[in-house]
């Protein structure tokens, strides 16, 4: 293992290169831009034998991925925020067509008001689309999850697209050490793309037909079953990934000092790092706090979550998103997973639109949760209170 230091976006672009997509189609948008620039120059320099389609919008980016994937190519795209929103119709369509597209999401807030900064509203907005959604804590996870996603998505028993979500700027623009795997290892793990079916004049099929009321329900059922099966596939290939690359991804939820924790924090993405540092400091003060890091939001690992949190007294969920008029998306899921347990579960909407979250914020939230105060936007300015 040779660690290198590089920007997250470049690490992701280099990792995508290692996965050997034959077609890349993407449209630049902050903070995803460095990834597509990186890939464009990788292709321009002849370091990857791929077609790079310079499309006129995100809508076309993912549409072109649908065509290329259906025609038998491994494909890649990346986007964020408004781009993902613009793609919305295609996002659902790609999943329903069961195409194993991998797309990087540099998580960013949604307009209005316009914000280029990080939260996770964009990918959460697409939670019902039938894509797998993985969330990276750091750039090592972001790149590993790209490789893992191809492996899972292309399994003929799965055939789904996947978002690999990493926090915009916080991960996409950070320079930090990563282990960029060797081409040989990635090739041995992934192998060449072996499409389940493809558009081929020698063996014609009709692809993407419409379903009448006699069939639509069944298509949705089978799609749902595939997303659910993905949980086991991620575990299986996550374990294999560990054997090949030395980093294990066989768990969809990962605990940190959770075994004896009285208060559990549940979070997704890069904030988990800050939470871990805060937990270490709280532990030093004698407070039994732990973290449950949700690596996978779709499929939602309800059983794993319930098991991991069964012993705690209080749960504080950190949501970098909000379903306006309801709660944060993660809290809603956690409450469903823990239904019947009687553990108080509090939701904290925080960090929206790039608001920085510090260790002291995490400590404050633990205090609030332990006092039974929650289900709130955390850290609001005085003038709105």
């Amino acid at each position, binding site marked *: 293992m040779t660690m290198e230091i590089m*920007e997250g976006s470049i690490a992701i672009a280099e990792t995508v290169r290692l996965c050997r997509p034959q077609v890349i189609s993407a449209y630049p948008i902050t*903070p995803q831009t460095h990834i597509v620039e990186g890939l464009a120059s990788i292709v321009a320099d002849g370091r990857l034998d791929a077609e790079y389609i310079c499309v006129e919008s995100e809508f076309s980016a993912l549409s072109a991925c649908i065509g290329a994937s259906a025609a038998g190519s491994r494909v890649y795209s990346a986007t964020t925020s408004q781009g993902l929103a613009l793609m919305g119709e295609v996002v659902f369509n790609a999943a329903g067509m069961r195409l194993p597209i991998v797309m990087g999401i540099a998580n960013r807030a949604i307009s209005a008001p316009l914000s280029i900064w990080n939260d996770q509203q964009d990918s959460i907005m697409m939670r019902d689309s039938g894509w797998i959604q993985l969330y990276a804590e750091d750039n090592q996870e972001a790149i590993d999850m790209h490789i893992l996603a191809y492996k899972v998505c292309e399994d003929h028993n799965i055939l789904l697209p996947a978002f690999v979500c990493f926090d915009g700027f916080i991960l996409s623009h*950070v*320079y*930090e*050490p990563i282990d960029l795997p060797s081409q040989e290892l990635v090739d041995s793990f992934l192998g060449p793309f072996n499409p389940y079916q493809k558009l081929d004049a020698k063996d014609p099929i009709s692809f993407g037909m419409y379903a009448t009321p006699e069939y639509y329900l069944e298509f949705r059922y089978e799609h749902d079953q595939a997303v659910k099966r993905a949980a086991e596939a991620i575990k299986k290939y996550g374990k294999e990934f560990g054997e090949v690359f030395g980093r294990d991804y066989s768990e969809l939820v990962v605990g940190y000092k959770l075994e004896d924790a009285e208060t559990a924090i549940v979070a997704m993405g890069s904030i988990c790092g800050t939470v871990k540092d805060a937990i270490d400091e709280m532990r030093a003060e004698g407070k039994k706090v732990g973290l449950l890091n949700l690596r996978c939001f779709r499929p939602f690992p309800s059983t794993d979550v319930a098991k991991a949190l069964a012993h705690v007294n209080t749960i504080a969920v950190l949501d970098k998103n909000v379903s306006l008029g309801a709660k944060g998306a993660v809290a809603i899921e956690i409450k469903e997973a823990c239904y019947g347990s009687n553990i108080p579960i509090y939701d904290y909407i925080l960090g929206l639109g790039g608001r920085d*979250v*510090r260790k002291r914020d995490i400590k404050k939230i633990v205090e609030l949760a332990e006092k039974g105060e929650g289900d709130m936007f955390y850290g609001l300015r005085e003038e709105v209170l």
Partner: protein
Amino acid sequence: MRELRIHGRGGQGSVTAAELIATAAFTAGVYSQAFPAFGVERRGAPVQAFVRFSDEKIRLRSQIYEPDYIIVQDSTLIRDVNVFAGMSEGGIAIINTEKDGAGYDLPKGVKLITIDATKVALEEIGLPITNTTLMGAFAAASGEITLEALEGAIKERFDAKLADSNIAAAKRAYAMVKEGRV
């Protein structure tokens, strides 16, 4: 963990400086992390960039509020921005200025190093781009990075000719700080 905050103006290469310092630190064997204060700032606007150094893997993702070190690329920033915010005893502030730095509202126990990096950069590189000069000063003042590692990072980033002049500027600033000629 030690933390560095770089204050500059858009276009002065603060982000590049953070990245090169992190690279130099990492190649010399410690974990490091560099990131900009993500924004929409245009050329000339005040910007910040951050670097963390640690013997262990760095997990913390928040911005830097209590830096051990600051680099100020442009002393006029001090009028608009509280560059010393969060600094405490033992901290080091490196400021690019022609003046001696008297009159700054330095927190107690913070060591001040002033250097005319613009003059050095103009003489060595021919451009008033001060980031590499200040990196040399930072290497000497903090000991977080070695001059060799800094040279390596600069060479990796720039074309040969540009790298040479930038290294010369960094070396000169390094020597100036080491010898107290600042």
